[in-house]
């Protein structure tokens, strides 16, 4: 009932672990597989190792979840090893990459392809690293398009471009990456945000600013996915604030073909994948749906 295909690859269910959540340890991926995950996105990797920010790098307030991990990762060598180990699982693996320059994006794509992930996701949207990366690539159609071409030209693997909601009009960016050859789009990454502790007059994240995810951003993610669906023909992984089966159904109706779950793991633990899958099935049975594909884009009339 929940099984589906995405760019020709089979998924037992449309529930994808979003990048940056538990995405660094292949042995733990086994645990997630037993807990019903449909596909796994790795943490975003760069060519060189990055240390990331000091703690606090994440917390949850009453409105949303904040993080500024600083894109810490072990570099391309570790990424290749992780993907190779993860390939032993029975769920598709999406390798997430990011870089500081267009050329480096191309180089990352070339090197990570060696490990044969099922998909490559280019994170061009991460708002965490001050001006250095991401922000500029995703915030204008020219750079988004150039990154897409650079990645595409260096691999035969299907390429997903992950977009940022911190832009004036995400439709323009979506169109640009589609025209540059992107096979799919993931939306959305986190929204820029911060919190200050008033007793000590200090921003809580060590980086001061970070990205907001979790339940609070669900309406924002939904609107972005709905808009993108109306603009492009390539499939979408709808991500942002999904914590229940009904959220997932709603995201599919907005036009997503798969849904990403990140912060949901915080709210409901690693069991969230089995739980959402069960809730989706219950809803579908109750409402007379037999195949998840009947739901995709259903809200567009």
């Amino acid at each position, binding site marked *: 009932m929940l099984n589906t295909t995405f760019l020709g690859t089979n998924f037992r269910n449309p529930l994808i672990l979003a990048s940056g*959540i*538990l*995405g*660094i*340890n292949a*042995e*733990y991926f*086994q*645990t997630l597989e037993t807990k019903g995950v449909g596909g796994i996105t790795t*943490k975003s990797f760069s060519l060189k190792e990055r240390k990331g920010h*000091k*703690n*606090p*790098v*994440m*917390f*949850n*307030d*009453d409105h949303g979840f904040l993080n500024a*991990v600083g894109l810490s990762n072990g570099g391309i060598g570790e990424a290749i090893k992780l993907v190779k180990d993860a390939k032993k699982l029975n769920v598709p693996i999406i390798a997430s990459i990011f870089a500081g320059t267009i050329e480096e994006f191309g180089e990352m794509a070339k090197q990570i392809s060696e490990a044969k992930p099922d998909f490559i996701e280019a994170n061009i949207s991460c708002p965490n690293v001050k001006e250095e990366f991401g922000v500029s690539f995703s915030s204008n159609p020219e750079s988004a398009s150039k990154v897409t071409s650079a990645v595409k030209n260096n691999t035969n693997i299907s390429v997903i471009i992950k977009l940022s909601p911190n832009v004036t009009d995400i439709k323009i960016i979506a169109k640009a990456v589609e025209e540059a050859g992107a096979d799919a789009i993931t939306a959305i990454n986190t929204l820029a945000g911060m*919190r200050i*502790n008033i*007793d*000590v007059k*200090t921003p*809580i994240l*060590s980086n001061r600013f970070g990205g907001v995810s979790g*339940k609070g951003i669900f309406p924002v993610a939904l609107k972005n996915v709905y808009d993108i669906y109306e603009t492009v023909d390539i499939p979408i992984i709808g991500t942002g604030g999904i*914590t*229940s089966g009904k959220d997932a159904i709603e995201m599919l109706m907005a036009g997503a073909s798969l849904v990403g779950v990140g*912060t949901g*793991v*915080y*709210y*409901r*633990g*690693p069991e969230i994948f089995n*739980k959402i899958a069960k*809730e989706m099935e219950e809803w579908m049975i109750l409402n007379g749906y037999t195949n998840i594909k009947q739901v995709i884009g259903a809200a567009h009339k």
Partner: protein
Amino acid sequence: MTIIQRTDIPKTVQIVDIIKHNNDVITISLGGSLNILPGQFIFVWLPNIEEKPFAVVNVEKHLFSFTAVKRGVFTSALFNLKKGMWLGYRGPYGKGFTPVKNKNVCIIAGGIGMAALCLLYNQLIKDNNVKLIYGAKNKEGLVFKQNICNDHLCLCTDDGSEGRKAFTTQLFEEILLKEKFDFVYTCGPEIMMKQVADLCAKHNIPCEASLERMMSCGFGVCGKCAINNQLVCLDGPVFNAQQLTQLKEFGTCKCD
């Protein structure tokens, strides 16, 4: 309908007491009430410096304390704090110990590992026969000994400056020749805990050990604390004998 409410934002409280046990060990008491089970842990936030996980060694009505050994930037900064200053904390996190009742139990503590066992000890002595084997490099390392009843205590140090000149595991082996235990709890250097777990397996005694790994979030999101297919912050930090045998990495961590 699933309604999920959780908040994990550092909450600021004032320091109400500071005890410097020696140049390397400090206990800080924070004003506030905390509902924590033995073996669980909290994150302590030093604004503008960092945030790190710690065991809670004492809980009273409007106060709770943690004890730290000077290791790096964070723990050194603790020594500059004064009463009345603000610190943040969040938690408690993790799965704690399983306290038994009406049994013969043995607690084996190595160094600062005793911090994670203090609340457990206080709970166990209410309705069990307790033996506590407590070892450290030297006598300065035995900072919790005055909180423990002498009748329960077997002390040892690597250099013989207090108690027996021996490792905790040696004392444990000797005591096992004379006494029978229904349950063993341990926290300390991982190599020590591994040996304790092996001895317990040999003598068929159920045991629990509290593990330590680098952590970032404490609530199962960052993945940093993974040990094989488990997360120390979520599935642990306390693991039972059966779980420990599944963790191939247990006993190999050189982080102590």
